[in-house]
């Protein structure tokens, strides 16, 4: 795919509501995409709308401009106003107040974003995740900027799950309605495209996350007896289940360690669980800036998550030659991990704890099997090489044809 030379140097806005010190997968994809596009000669600006005036967790390269549409801190007079607004926002499902609550929550973002787009006139604007997509959809402009929605979850999680994003019914309805204002909708997997109604499907393009290949010499042999788990410490990742399985396995594998990397709201609860079970070989490691080294030296990635979009931890483990174990009904993961080829997919029927304990123990005890599964990992993520994915980004932003749409009724 070639993009005409004239598009190099065009201005691109990447929009996300919150980025300051956030270490999530979507934030990482946004920063890595911004960096890669800047290296290709585009003028890239990352636009946020948040009160925290802190830098992003993932570093941006020279050439990428960071713009926060809000002041870094609330002023004195804003605090009482914000308290009143929070009260209104609590009434998000009360008829009559729901629109006011919705406006209070989203109004500033889309109004400021519209002003900023008018001032900077980007050729394309990409919104990451629902709050930013709502703002981009509603931003008023006087010229035809290409609007792209970048989705980072299974669609039912983004559009139907009341515990994610704005919990109001009004927002859940509008979220989907506003997608019709997008010129392109980027989803991570082909099956996610099928979820969208026919009138939107036409705009949907499959754009997976990029996976950086790991050179052969960096893949450690022999690997340490470590089971790795990487992800935000939140209920959706099911770290508790993993710790319970480890409680059963630890006595049989005294020379093995469980290392859980990441941080999140369940940290203290998980630590209590480890302490209560008296586990000395299970550790919460917090964030690490050198997680790549862990993938290269550990023996297994355990990823018992409930659902995923396109799990970066799994792709990076596979690229590093690490076998992955996870549940067959976990979206995203079940597309990347092929049972018996590059990892183990656990059945979702029966007791999950039993299934996880049995399969993990079996893999820990079988070094030749781990090696065979790990060896197949790098090849399985080759289609997601950064240059390939970046070409697809360019086509999405500036090409006339949609990638990944063989016969979607275009």
């Amino acid at each position, binding site marked *: 795919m070639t993009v005409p030379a004239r598009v190099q*140097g065009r*201005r691109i806005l990447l929009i996300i509501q919150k980025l300051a010190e956030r270490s999530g997968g979507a934030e990482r994809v946004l920063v890595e995409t911004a960096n890669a596009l800047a290296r290709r*000669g585009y*003028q890239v600006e990352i*636009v946020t709308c948040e009160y925290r*005036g802190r830098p992003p967790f993932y570093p*941006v*390269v*020279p*050439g*990428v*401009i*960071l*713009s*926060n*549409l*809000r*002041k*870094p801190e609330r002023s004195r007079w804003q605090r009482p106003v914000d308290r009143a607004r929070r009260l209104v926002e609590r009434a998000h499902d009360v008829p009559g107040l729901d629109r006011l609550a919705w406006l209070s929550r989203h109004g500033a973002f889309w109004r400021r974003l519209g*002003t*900023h787009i*008018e*001032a*900077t*006139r980007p050729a394309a604007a990409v919104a990451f995740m629902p709050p930013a997509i709502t703002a981009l959809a509603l931003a008023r402009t006087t010229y035809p900027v290409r609007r792209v929605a970048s989705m980072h979850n299974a669609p039912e999680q983004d559009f139907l799950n009341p515990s994610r994003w704005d919990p109001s019914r009004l927002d859940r309805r509008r979220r989907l309605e506003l997608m019709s204002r997008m010129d392109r909708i980027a989803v991570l997997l082909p099956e996610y495209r099928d979820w969208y109604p026919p009138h939107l499907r036409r705009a949907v393009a499959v754009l997976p996350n990029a996976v950086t290949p790991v050179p052969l010499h960096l893949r450690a042999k022999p690997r340490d007896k470590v089971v790795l788990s990487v992800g935000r410490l939140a209920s959706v990742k099911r770290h508790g289940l993993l710790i319970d399985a480890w409680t059963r396995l630890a006595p049989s594998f005294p020379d093995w360690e469980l290392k859980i990397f990441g941080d999140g709201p369940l940290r203290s609860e998980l630590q209590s669980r480890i302490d209560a079970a008296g586990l000395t070989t299970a550790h919460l490691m917090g964030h690490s800036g050198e997680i790549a080294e862990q993938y290269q030296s550990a023996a297994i990635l355990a990823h018992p998550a409930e659902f995923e979009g396109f799990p970066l931890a799994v792709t990076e483990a596979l690229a590093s030659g690490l076998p992955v174990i996870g549940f067959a009904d976990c979206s995203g993961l079940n597309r990347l991990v092929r049972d018996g080829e590059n990892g183990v997919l656990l059945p979702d029927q029966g007791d999950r704890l039993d299934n996880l304990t049995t399969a993990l123990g079996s893999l820990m005890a079988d070094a030749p099997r781990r090696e065979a599964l790990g060896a197949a990992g790098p090849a399985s993520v080759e289609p997601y090489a950064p240059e390939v994915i970046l070409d697809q980004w360019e086509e999405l932003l500036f090409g006339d044809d949609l990638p990944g749409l063989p016969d979607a009724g275009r």
Partner: protein
Amino acid sequence: MQMKAMSHDLDVLIPHYRDPAGLRSSLDSITQQTWGGRIRVVVVDDGSPEESFAEAEVECEHFRALGRHDLVLLRNDRNLGRPRTRNRLIDAIQSPYVAWLDAGDIWYPEKLTRQFEHLANLCLNGRDPNRIWVTCAYDWSQADKTRTLTQDTRGDQLRSLLIGSNLRAYLWTLLGTAEAFRIAGRFDERLPRLQDLDYFINFVRAGGQISSPRGREGLCCYFKSHLGRNAAEIHACYKLILAKNAPALKRYPPSLASELHYKAARLASQFAKSNDRPYAATLFLLRGALGSPRHTARMVVGLARRRLKGAPAKPASLQQDAQS
């Protein structure tokens, strides 16, 4: 004429429009540089009339005939304006280092030598050359008067550029690597004036740093004229730059935004006054006063205090020029 890629050390980029005599001065100043590297000069003529272009061709041929450096002359089919011409110059970059010069302005012989030495020293001190632009002190020549102005690169460079008193956005002072110029992106084609300022702000906001060699002697000379410049256009350009960078301005106290909006009006007023439009000049000042009452009040109080103390009125600080 196309040169072989990467066969030179430095590209000197010159936009030209209807000023062959000025172009000759600029080319002569390049010839006189003491720096010994291989230079490729790229001149883009912005659709000058045939006669003027023919004279520019003669000057370019004369430069080539000296045999010291190479020169590429390109021409826009029609007058596209300074930003688009400068973008065409950016597209023509082939060498690892880049410097800019405007037809009519000149470099003194030591300019490149001093700037390359400074860049080398920065590299020795562990700085990344691909994030640095080297500027320099310069002579400001206006109405037969010349004074030397230094560039103060200390402190918050974004703020300094916006205020424009101690650090000014003049492209013809710059030397840097081609990669360092990539950071700033391209010139905004909606800015017929002040596109230098916008380009500098982009560079600093995108992680670039401006540095200047020590010393107070000017290394180049800018010949200044306010004549023929549209005050309303300058005002609109300044306002657009402030709008583009509104998110960056939010991190400063509101007094800065007030000062800058006042400055936009005052700058336009200066240009209107220079072009014998006193009525328009007064209107712009009034606009500035009404639009930025906070800053105007501070100015009036400061002026009154100085008067009461018997101190002479503060000389008007040299404002960011709208030469682009």
